[in-house]
């Protein structure tokens, strides 16, 4: 169907359990370059676990994840190098409170990519300007609102020039009036061609921006289609129930 060189992440029969609790029961899918994949699913279905497996914050019990053809689940792979290509944006932002906004953005490129501080600062300032927060560069995270923090967190991820960004419910911890400003940044990012995998409850975002929607139920992919088909013509019974509850 598509040229295999377009595939950025190839996921094969991914399984994860916590003790006796099976969360993921064999997930296989491809994430292509430039794709905006939205993952939906009822609470506890394993969608966050799936996302966290992609950068190995959770270690899968079985299966393989290939990033640009490199199996990152292989013990011999240096995961710290691979992780530099997959950034993550967290529900609770997880900015470093003891560092300024600018330092939050520049520490990883300076320490890990050996970027010069001048260049890192320049890059960080450009990113902050893009999200309208350049005047906050020298303040600390606690002086920012939730929406501002999440915009900074996205900039922190971008500063590493990743190939893909994982969003783990990026707007769930925000006051409603701040959701828009974060979604705007994500939309702009999608338009710029960034590969994104988003776990979110923002159906508007999914409809408008996603190139593909995956519905996970009981640890497996229950439906995998375009947003138009998923929202207007859902085939899976559980997906129909799910959509009827939230829409």
């Amino acid at each position, binding site marked *: 169907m598509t040229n295999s060189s377009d595939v950025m992440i190839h996921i094969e029969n991914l399984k994860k359990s916590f003790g006796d609790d099976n969360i993921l029961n064999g997930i296989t899918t491809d994430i292509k370059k430039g794709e905006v994949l939205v993952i939906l699913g009822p609470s506890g279905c394993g969608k966050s676990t799936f996302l966290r497996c992609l950068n190995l*914050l959770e270690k899968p019990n079985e299966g393989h994840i290939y990033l640009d053809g490199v199996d990152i689940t292989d013990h011999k792979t240096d995961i710290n190098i691979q992780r530099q290509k997959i*950034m993550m944006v967290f529900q609770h932002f997880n*900015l*470093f409170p*003891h560092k300024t906004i600018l330092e939050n953005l520049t*520490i*990883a490129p300076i320490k*890990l990519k050996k970027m010069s501080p001048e260049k890192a600062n320049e890059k960080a300032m450009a990113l902050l300007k893009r999200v309208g927060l350049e005047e906050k560069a020298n303040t600390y995270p606690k002086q920012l609102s939730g929406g501002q923090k999440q915009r900074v967190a996205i900039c*922190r991820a971008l500063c590493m020039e990743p190939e893909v960004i994982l969003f783990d419910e990026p707007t769930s911890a925000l006051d409603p009036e701040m959701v828009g400003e974060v979604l705007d940044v994500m939309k702009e990012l999608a338009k710029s061609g960034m590969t994104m995998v988003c776990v979110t409850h923002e159906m508007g975002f999914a409809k408008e921006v996603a190139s593909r929607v995956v519905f996970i139920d009981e640890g497996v992919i229950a439906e995998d289609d375009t947003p138009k088909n998923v929202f207007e013509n859902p085939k899976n019974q559980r997906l129909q129930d799910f959509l009827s509850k939230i829409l």
Partner: protein
Amino acid sequence: MLRKSSNGVRIKAFAVVLMVTTILLTFSACQWDSSAQTKSDVHGAEDLKSATIGVQLGTTGDIYASDYKKDGAIIVEYNKGADAIQALKKSKVDCVVIDEQPAKNFVKQNADLSILDEAFAVEEYAICFAKSNTELRDKVNSALAQIKDNGTLDSIIDSYISGKDNSTYQYISQSNTVPTNGTLTVATNASFEPYEYMENGKICGIDIDVSQAIADILGMELKVTDMEFDSIITAVSSGKADMGVSGITITDERKKNIEFSTPYTAAKQVIIVRNGTSDNNAFLSVDKFKANFLDEGRWQYLAQGLLTTLQITLLAVIMGIVLGFLIAIGRVSCEKTGKYKVLNWILKTYLTIIRGTPTMIQLLIIYYVIFASSSIDKVLVAVIAFGLNSSAYIAEIVRSGIESISEGQFEAGRSLGFTYAQTMRHFILPQAIKNVLPALGNELIVLLKETSISGYIGIMDLTRGGDYIRSRTYDAFLPLIVVALIYLAIVSILSALLGKLERRLKNDDK
């Protein structure tokens, strides 16, 4: 501006608290003193049966007095003769059983005390050695015989005792004898005038001169180390000292553990009582201050002691922090990954042992057991002991600090591509340290005060410095209060500095 004035208020409040404390202590001390003038009810050995008897721990006086326990006597054991005397003056005991010569000195300096005419027991002093060290014992015996024959021994004893107060004899080490046979380490307890005591910052007395005379004959260099009396036998049998010379009486019990030389002098055990007169002791007078701190430059004991205390504390806290952080990081990593179960078990056991045993026991074990046969510097022993002790507490403080940082911080660091160690260093530890700084400061303060037990292995720390003064001036009040105030001042300075550091760190992320 606001900050400055609030600081000023704090300093004033502190000064007021300090003054009130001092005044209260003075008053309560005077209370005790006013009750000290009653005459003892002990008139002879017969009366000991119903008396409260003060003795020096581990001395023959202690052993003899303990015989009266079955008759209802209460024995109170003190680390130093001088402490027993102070207890007697303050009516905490009815009498003190102690060796005659120190007793004479005590009575000479305290008009309210008298020695009962009836001698309690006669005994002989000898030098003690480790059981295995009969070779040295034989050498010392022949040296003793030599100085007995040539009159040196009598001259030394006469120069300190037997009424020849203005005797000008002084044993002088022959300058032509170059010590070629190594060092002779002598353990003693320098609060037993005239046998051994501190004067002008040096240990002197009959036993020291006798030891010097023996060392000269043996061609060895004399090295005197001071310690608690009840530690001397341990020190000798563990090899910390070659011999113990401290007015030690030969008893059957002691013979089981150590070898004795032939006796070098005889002495009597006597009973000291309060005679009912007042020794006219004002609590705080210029004279008292002068006697305690200015005469013979006694303040130097405190100054030197303070330096030693600070030295031990500083080095121990550095060692404690380094070790503590390593242990904490080790523990957290083990728990987090579930790997290295053996390492985790070792660390946990270490913490349990260190936190589950008293610091003093650890200090003694490290000195007498672990470093038994090496001639390691005592201050270094104390640094190791307190450093190890502190490391266990710091480890748990730091671990709680690390665990107080949310898992999200860790995930953020790792997701950016930082390794476990980098994440710890750049993100977790800086935040953890800030959180635990007050607890770490508290540990430093506890450690500073804890070092006051260093005297148990014979280190001249601040507390011990005060003890020396007490053993010479027989005044409990001033030396103890001044030592307490010095500790208080150091702790206050440390607290102020730590408070400043904390505020500075807090302002950082505002």
